[in-house]
Structure formats: structure tokens, C-alpha cells
């Protein structure tokens, strides 16, 4: 029972990490950019769901959909305004811009909500008892929704024209552009998908942990980024695999060691991967083009 319960915990944590990690990995895959503002967009989605649920009394499904659409549009807007003008600039400039956008989002939300907020519960609190382990309706929803979205994304990337364009751009942006693929539009779609998934994570996270604050995207953003690195950054299936691996590592640490070692293990895992397998589990070593 104890082990089953921890397994459920791993699945819940891993699903949230996975949804966020996908945003990092997609953007990196197509633009070679680590979008450090991604964790903060996750936070914005949490606050948006709070506003919709607390002030406008929206039920769950409309809240989720509105958050997805609005935050996805924000993602596209940020790309257009902040990253697009830097297409030809050195990569460091874009990364610093991303950090700046993240800081802006945090402080912008801080302006209106300096204190942590309590998100109203939108999902009925039903729990089931399976052989002593407890699983809630919310957990089932988080895990189910995450798996569904991950599969859908995999389908889009591997079996549609847009997906093919994305994969092509990640190989060689210049040549693909010359062959008539609308590179800018495909990049926008990538941002929309990535941040939309992050928004779902934000809404589900706010439901699961109920207390939100403007800084909540920072740490969880790092964790999701580590997931993406472990799985092989730029690789979509890798991000999902990395998310469940990291979640399992974090929960197992607490199971057998004092819980303080959790972050030590998390970051050690990142260092080990960066040192010995920087391209991650499913990634392929990059060949330096001469």
C-alpha cells in the first residue's frame, strides 16, 4: 500500500513536470533557445485560473480552456516582441532576454498579488481507496490529462504537416526557409503549443496545491528544465521520460533518505547528465558542422 501510494505520488508529480518540460524542449528543439520565461508563464496560468475561478466563478473546463488559449497567445506574443527581433543575434542575448521576460512576469503579478492566494477548488474532492492507498479524482485527472496531451502532441509532431515542418526546422532553419516553409508561423505554433501545455500544468498545479504565489514558477521551472535535459533536450518523448524519472528520483529520495537530500539528488542528477551524457537519454550527440 505504501509503495502504491508513493507510485501515485510519482505519477502526479511527473505529469506536472512533463507538461512543463515539453514547453522547454519544443522551444529548444526548434530555436536552440532555453526559454527561461516558461516557468513564469506557468505561474501566470495559475493566477489566471485563480482570477477566473474566484472573481468570475467559472467552472473547471472553461477555466482550463481560457487559460490555455490566453497563455498560449501570451507565449506567441512574447516570441514576436522579444525573441523575433533577436533571430540573428548571439544566442546569449536571447537567453538573457528570456530571463528578463521571466522577471517582468514575476514582478508584474507581484504588483497585483503581493500575497499568496488561495485558488478555489473547481474539481470535486472525491477520493478512492485502493488497498489502503488513496487516489483522488484530481490526481486521476492530472495524470490522465497529461498522458492525453502528451500523446496528442506526439501525434501532431510526428504525423502532421506542421509537425513535419517543426522537425525540419529543428534540423536546419535556413534551408527549410528557402524551401518555402513559413518558418515564423511554425515557430509561433511551437510557442503556442508549448506554453499552452505549460498553462495546463499551471491550472492543474493550482488545483492540486491550491496556494499560489508569483515566485512559484521559478523552482518548478528549473525542475522541469532538468527533466528536459535528462530526457535529451529537444526530444519530446525524452522530456516525458525525464519528467517521470526525476519525479521518481525525488520521491524515492524522501522514501529512503532524509527529505533534505531531495534537491541534492535532483541537481546531482543534472550534473551527472551534463558531464557524461549532455544530450540526455533519448537525444543524439550533436555533430559539429564544419
Amino acid at each position, binding site marked *: *500500500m*505504501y509503495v502504491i*501510494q*508513493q507510485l501515485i*505520488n510519482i505519477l*502526479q*508529480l511527473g505529469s506536472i513536470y512533463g507538461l512543463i518540460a515539453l514547453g522547454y524542449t519544443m522551444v529548444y528543439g526548434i530555436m536552440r533557445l532555453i526559454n527561461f520565461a516558461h516557468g513564469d508563464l506557468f505561474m501566470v496560468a495559475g493566477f489566471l485560473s485563480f482570477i477566473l475561478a474566484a472573481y468570475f466563478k467559472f467552472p473547471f473546463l472553461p477555466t482550463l480552456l481560457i487559460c490555455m488559449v490566453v497563455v498560449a497567445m501570451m507565449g506567441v506574443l512574447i516570441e514576436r516582441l522579444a525573441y523575433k527581433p533577436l533571430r540573428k543575434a548571439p544566442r546569449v542575448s536571447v537567453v538573457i532576454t528570456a530571463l528578463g521576460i521571466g522577471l517582468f512576469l514575476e514582478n508584474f503579478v507581484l504588483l497585483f498579488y*503581493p*500575497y*499568496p*492566494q*488561495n485558488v478555489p477548488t473547481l474539481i470535486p*474532492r472525491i*477520493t478512492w*481507496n485502493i488497498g489502503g492507498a*488513496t487516489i*483522488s479524482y*484530481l*490526481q486521476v485527472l492530472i495524470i490522465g490529462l497529461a498522458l492525453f496531451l502528451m500523446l496528442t502532441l506526439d501525434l501532431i509532431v510526428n504525423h502532421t504537416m506542421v509537425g513535419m515542418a517543426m522537425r525540419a526546422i529543428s534540423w536546419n532553419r535556413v534551408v527549410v526557409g528557402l524551401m518555402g516553409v513559413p518558418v515564423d508561423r511554425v515557430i509561433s505554433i511551437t510557442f503556442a503549443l508549448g506554453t499552452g501545455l505549460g498553462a495546463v500544468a499551471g491550472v492543474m498545479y493550482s488545483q492540486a*496545491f*491550491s*496556494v499560489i*504565489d508569483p515566485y*512559484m514558477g521559478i*523552482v*518548478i521551472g528549473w525542475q522541469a528544465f532538468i527533466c528536459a535535459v535528462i530526457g535529451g533536450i529537444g526530444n519530446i518523448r525524452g522530456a516525458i521520460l525525464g519528467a517521470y524519472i526525476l519525479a521518481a528520483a*525525488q*520521491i524515492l529520495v*524522501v*522514501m529512503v533518505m*532524509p*527529505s*533534505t537530500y*531531495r*534537491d541534492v539528488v535532483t541537481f546531482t542528477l543534472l550534473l551527472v547528465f551534463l558531464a557524461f551524457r549532455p544530450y540526455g537519454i533519448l537525444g543524439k550527440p550533436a555533430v559539429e558542422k564544419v
Partner: protein
Amino acid sequence: MKKTLAILLVTMLTITSVALVGCKSSAALTIPIGLNAELTGGLPVVGASCKNAALMAVKEVNDAGGLTVGGKQYQIKLFVEDNGYKADQSVAVQQKLITQDNVVAIVGPNASVMAVPASEIAESSKVLMISPWSTNPNTTIDSKTGQPKKYVFRACFIDTFQASVDAKFAMNKLGAKRVAILYDLGNDAFVGQSTFFKNTFTQLGGTITDVETYTTGDKDFSAQFTKIKASNPDLIFLPSMYNEAPVQIKQAHALGIKVPFLGTDGWSSQDLITLGGKDVEGCFFSAHYAPDIATPIAQKFIADYKTAYGAVPDDVAALCYDSFGLLFQALKTAGKVDRQAVRDALATIPNYQGVTGTMQFKEGSGDPIKSAVMLQIKNGKFVYYSTAQP
């Protein structure tokens, strides 16, 4: 045109600077006092309460014509600084108040994480510091020598006392025999409370079934609570902050944990109920004062605070108000505005009637002798349950 503008500008600057100098020389006598508070960062509610109470205490004195020290009337000048809930910033701010603003004494910081490092600065600079809310023993005791610090005082009880009150309460009033503990390893106050609770509770014959930890900022406690649940306790001791406890208790309930929770003074902010809702209903915690059994002094304070800020003051506000009360009393007793004299006067205050009860200081310790109360959360309110004497 440019020339006229330049002349105009110079004239204006001269007039203003003359006016400023003139102002300074003709101003009333002032006593500079520093406030080192958690205005931004992880504990904004604590910082806001502290600042509100400080401004109120100072305004009361100034509106009444000032403080009479050694036969002269002084206005209080308050320097408010933000420590950002960061240890390093708290030290920097402390130094700024002492060297740049030349304050006579400092109130704050509130949380032990900031108060312990800031106290080192106060001690080495020989400037009186009163922490309203820091309950960790190391705030007033030098951890290297084990000797009490000479210039550091507090307005609240300490963790050894609080934890023993909690342990006795758990065993005698709640009938708990098996207790599990979850605490933040990154917070001095909670580490202390957990250790002392564990010691007292086992001495009383109880069993600690499991001790779990986390780090400040963690949001997922599912693994810890699953372990705690497996250890089968009748009560969970949860010394944490008002904005963490609701998240933790909600997760525990989601995992099917049904045993009651017992908290400490970190819970005592109205935000606990706002954030926790039904989940925190029925829980107990130890606190510095209970608004519903207040003495006449406390009732006046609560009423004034409500008029000024439209909210019931939490215990940080009450303790901060008391810190200023103690400081004013010490200034009056000292009879002169001098850092050393004020410190000496405070160290031997025999009896001070504050909002949070009667306090007494004895030379050789910066910790007041005072009582604690147990509160319960009932129908969305903090309700007085019992008092524990030192």
C-alpha cells in the same frame, strides 16, 4: 534663453537648500529608531503587520507631543528598512540603520532566519535590538560561547518554552501518544521547535513515530505525508509558516490522513484561514496572544488597529507594538538618548504591561518572562483555548 534658465535653476536650488538647512536647525528634538522588517519576499504579511504596528506606536507618541526623556520632549523618527526575507539583506539593512541613520535602537527583524544574523551586527556595534517575533534561542544567545548577548532582546517567548507547551498540550489535552513531525530544515525556528518538542514529548512518555523534513519553498509533500501516514500517528506536529501549513494540511487530507494537526506561532496570521479554509478547521496552535480574551490595554490596541488598518491585528503586530512600548519605557527610564543607557534600562524592566501580557526582564537574559496561549481554529476564527504559564 539658456542662460536665464540656468540662473533660474541655480536660484531655485539655492533657495531650497537654504530652506532645508533652516528646517533642520529649527526642527524639534528627535530620537531616531530603526525598523528592520520583512516587507517583501516570503513573509510579506509579517512585514506589513510589523510596519503597521510600528507606525501606529510612533504616531501615538508623536501625536501626544512626543516622548519625555530627561525632562525634554522628543519626537520619534522612524527609519523603515526592508530585509526582503533574506539573511544577507537583513545584515546589510541593520548596518545601514546603525552607521548611516544613526539610530538609538532597532526593532526587528521578526523571523529567526533574519533575526539571528542581524543580532550579530547589533551585538558587535553595541546597539540595542528588540526582535518582536523571533523565537529561536540563538537570537539572544551567542551560539559560540553559549553566553547571552548583551544588546539583543525580544518581546516574545522562546522555542524551548513554546515546544514544551505544545508537547504537554498534545499529551495531556489532546491525548496523543504517537506523534509524527514535519518541519522545514531551512528555518532556524522550526528546527528548534521540532527538536525541543521531540525531547519533551519523549520525556513525557510519548512516542515520535516519524520525523520528516523539507526545504523552504517546497510545494510537494506527498512523499513525506505518505511516510508519515504509514507510521500511524495520532497527531502531526507541524511547525510551519501560515502560508505553508494550508498547503501541507490539504495535501495530507488528500492522502487520506485524518489525524489532527498541531502548529506553532508561525501559524498566527489570518491568512492561514483564508488560504486553508475548511482544511485547517479544528487545528490547534500555540501563540503569543489571543485577541478574544484581551486585557483593557490589548482591547484598546485592537480597536485602534482596526480603525487604522481595517483588520484584526495578528500576533506580529501585537508583539511589534509591545517592542516599541518596551523601548519607549526604557528611554524614559534611561533619562537620556544614549544607546548604552537605553540598553541598560531595558535589561532590568521589572514589569511591563503589554498587549501580549505582562513581561519582565532580568539582567543576563534578553528573553522576557511571559506566558503562552493555545488557540483553536473554529468557524473560520482563532479562538482562545487555554493559557500556559512559564
